[in-house]
């Protein structure tokens, strides 16, 4: 897919944008999740809580964990929207869903970030 392809005018509508964000967030999750698991496992296996806490206090861990949670929220909301369309036949309410997605996702992201630091 070329860059000019990305900007194809025919994609400039909420449905495609939502699907695209959904895919990117899904991809991000799929890439982050193994690291998250790995890190969790490693840190805890080392056996010491102190080590683990030290580890979670590292800024890069905080940032990436925040991103992970944000991506999860975004993807989750987008996924719900999609499931509604596919399984409940909710077509008219697309616009509403998209705004809910964004509101929810940013809400969670901001909340998390506010408290994390």
């Amino acid at each position, binding site marked *: 897919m070329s860059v000019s392809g990305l900007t194809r*005018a*025919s994609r400039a509508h909420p449905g495609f944008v939502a*699907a695209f964000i959904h895919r990117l967030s899904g991809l991000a999750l799929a890439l982050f999740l193994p690291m998250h698991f790995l890190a969790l496992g490693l840190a805890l296996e080392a056996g010491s809580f102190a080590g683990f806490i030290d580890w979670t206090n590292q800024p890069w861990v905080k940032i990436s964990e925040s991103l992970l949670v944000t991506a999860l929220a975004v993807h989750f909301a987008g996924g719900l929207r999609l499931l509604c369309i596919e399984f409940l*036949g909710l077509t008219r309410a*697309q616009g509403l869903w998209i705004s809910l997605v964004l509101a929810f996702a940013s809400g969670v992201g901001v909340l998390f970030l506010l408290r994390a630091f």
Partner: protein
Amino acid sequence: MSAPERILQVDIRRGGEAGDYERFEVPERENQTVLDVVTYIQRHLDAALAYRFSCRVGVCGSCAMTVNGRPRWTCRTHVARVVRGGKLTLAPLANLPVIRDLVTDMTPFFEKWQAARGRFVPGDGPRGEMAAVSPGDKQRMAASDAIECINCGVCHAACDVVSWREDYLGPAALNRAWAAWNDVRDGDRNGILRAVTSGGGCHTCHTHQSCAEHCPVSLNPTFSIAGLKRESLKAKLRGELK
């Protein structure tokens, strides 16, 4: 009358599979569709410009092309609605082979239509009378909602999954299959579900909704495809599809 003539800058993609844009200048008119612009160019500026149209009122679905990046029917697209800064960019529909200039080969589109079992198969009802079906019947309404497709190929061109997956049947074919499945007179409705679950069938769709967004006659293939996804899954679970 005396107002100076306004000129449209029209870039048209010329040639076959490979090609380049060529600029034309067309006088703007009050009542002018994109098809009229193309006709003007063929009649007055370049006699060899190739394009396709037939009915000129939005029923045959022959005149679709890419207008400023979006697939559209052109006989019913008023220039004023799409022109940007006095410019129009025209190209053939995406996702179909190009024959020449603005004309595409719709053969693959109709092959997919057939592959999706987009046609009626008679049931064993009596041939000499009309099946009694109430207009308020749920399936009848679903069939009616999906049936007025003019097979213009606009949705097919708008769908990214069609360009990503060669074997994807695409929104128009699947939309037709959904109308067929909702036809209670049909003699092989499971056959439709079988057709739309093999290869690049309905589950290949990612609910991008570009099809519904662009369909000139406001059909909603996304909705139809979602219906197929559900019904075929149900039929599989019930063991009706082998």
